[in-house]
């Protein structure tokens, strides 16, 4: 009888069931509101995964939403102004956003740390201002209305991306998130993921081991740019409008918060949990009759999560903790009390 370790398999089965529920969700409800919340959460999840990947190399970018804007505008301009069909332009949007991320990364990643954050912040604002002022290309604050994707005939079914029918968008989102998650999962658990972690942990040591800092930072930033671009293009097509204010500094900050609240110890899991919980919470609270309460609760929740989870881990670490509790296993690590010895 082959060895069957229930302690690893039960959590996996639970995750599998959760994924299956999400995949067949449109069977239970085709409500536009519910599905829209999940579609938007999925889109933010992709952006958050990109952010977390950059964070894994020890840099935090405060202009991640700018790449969503680049992807969205690239796709919309290609279809509306240049008359390209939808699918090629969607693919090109991620590539264009990735190329811009590559160029920016090559120039900017020389300066690390907080300076990188400030430069990306300024870059994000530049993109927003450009989208606002270059009326000839982007129609300024009036925004571009991207055309709906064409109907696809597949196995006798017509997949119709008409407005008011969120189900095709939902499955498109599931496929996009799944592809991104698999790629980021592979990156995280491969040699290159280990290299990224070594950059974040000890930059000097990594450099002395013969790791080319710039090369790996630029790789992470470019991959993040590609997928964030896809997320932006999809978001614009889902909402069927792009304005310069959709992807500003505050959206970058939102991405950052989702990443940190979800937890950065797992790129895929943390992004999924953080984006879904924070986005759903924000939408739910904005429906309450008390005006402005969503900002207060949002800020409070983020601060409380940061304060009360051990040593700045996110919500995703509760998953492992939960199963260790269930199986009555000792915690993997004890937080040493010596580290409390702050400089008084």
């Amino acid at each position, binding site marked *: 009888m082959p060895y069957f370790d229930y302690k690893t398999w039960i959590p996996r089965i639970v995750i599998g069931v959760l994924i299956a529920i999400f995949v067949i969700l449109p069977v239970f409800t085709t409500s536009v509101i519910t599905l829209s919340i999940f579609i938007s959460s999925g889109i933010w999840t992709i952006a958050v995964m990109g952010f977390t990947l950059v964070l894994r190399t020890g840099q935090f970018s405060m202009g991640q939403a700018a790449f969503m804007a680049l992807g969205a505008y690239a796709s919309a301009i290609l279809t509306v102004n240049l008359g390209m069909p939808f699918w090629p332009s969607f693919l090109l949007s991620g590539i264009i956003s990735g190329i811009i991320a590559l160029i920016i990364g090559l120039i900017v990643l020389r*300066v690390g740390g907080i300076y990188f954050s400030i430069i990306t912040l300024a870059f994000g604002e530049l993109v927003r201002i450009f989208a606002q002022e270059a009326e000839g290309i982007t129609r300024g604050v009036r925004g571009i209305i991207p055309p709906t994707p064409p109907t696809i005939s597949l196995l006798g079914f017509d997949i119709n991306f008409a407005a008011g029918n969120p189900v095709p968008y939902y499955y498109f989102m599931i496929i996009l998130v799944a592809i991104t998650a698999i790629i980021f999962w592979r990156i995280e658990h491969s040699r290159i993921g280990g290299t990224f972690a070594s950059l974040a942990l000890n930059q000097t040591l990594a450099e002395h081991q013969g790791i080319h800092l710039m090369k790996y930072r630029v790789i992470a930033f470019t991959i993040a740019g590609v997928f964030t671009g896809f997320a932006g293009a999809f978001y614009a097509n889902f909402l069927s409008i792009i304005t310069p204010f959709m992807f500003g500094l505050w959206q970058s900050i939102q991405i950052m918060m989702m990443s940190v609240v979800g937890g950065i110890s797992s790129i895929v899991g943390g992004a999924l949990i953080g984006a879904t919980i924070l986005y759903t919470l924000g939408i739910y609270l904005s429906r309450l009759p008390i005006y402005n309460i969503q*900002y207060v609760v949002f*800020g409070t929740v983020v601060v409380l999560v940061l304060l009360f989870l051990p040593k700045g881990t996110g919500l995703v670490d509760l998953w492992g903790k939960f199963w260790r509790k269930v199986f009555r296993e000792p915690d993997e690590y004890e937080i040493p009390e010596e580290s409390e010895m702050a*400089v008084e």
Partner: protein
Amino acid sequence: MPPAEILIDGLVQSCIYITMAFGMVLVFSILGILNWTHGQFYMLGAFVVYYSITAAGIPFPLSLLISGIIIGALGMLVERFVIERLNAPGYGMMYVSVATLALIFFFEGAAGMAFGLMDKGLATVLPGVLNLGSFSVSYQKIAVIIFTLVVMIIMYVVLNRTKVGLAIRAAAQESVAASLYGISVKRVSLLVMGIGCALAAMAGAIMAPVYTINPFMGRIPMIFSLLAIIIGGLGSLTGAIVGGIILGFLNSVIAYYVSYLSEFVLFMLVIIILLVRPQGLFGAPIK
């Protein structure tokens, strides 16, 4: 050459950025973090002065001090309960940044709930204009400039001539060594956060009669004072003054010629300065 009113406006803007940048520089040099909530303390300071004048009838200079004290205490609370816990060893610097960014939403939402989202004006505090021949300056703007000069002088005296200032400078230079010599870095951090937030609040309070007051007024001054200390160099007070003056004048002068270009030019300038000289104009080189 743009008209004198534009230059005066640039000077007033520079003054506000300088006052706010002082607080950010102090907090950065002691705690090693950027306090992203700084603009919200500016906004809260303006609200405190608005209500203490309209509701309680306290005269303007006194309400200025009151707003500084109240918001300074609030800043100390934030330092004690949020920043200090997240700035401990074992956390990355990012956690503090995200926490202060989250506090932006908290304070703006709370201010919106408590005071409403409507613009409020406080026009009759210092009425009248000073006529200077070809142009005139309102007394309110002169008050802003004088206030900033006073703040600069007080900061210089406190930092260079008192024991507290010596402790702050020592803690900024080498916190471990300072704590070996009996300086409580914890208390210095608390004090510095209080001073920084009080400065931001008073900047908001002195600007309240010039601009309108609403819960979102803190965002732009926060970004601009951040850019000012980046241009001047993180951790350098001289740099904060120079950066603030560059930003204030460039912003109003460029906006006078080509209105939409001003933000574009400023952000480009910041990117270029950071790429050419990442430590800023007056900062120490990065190790």
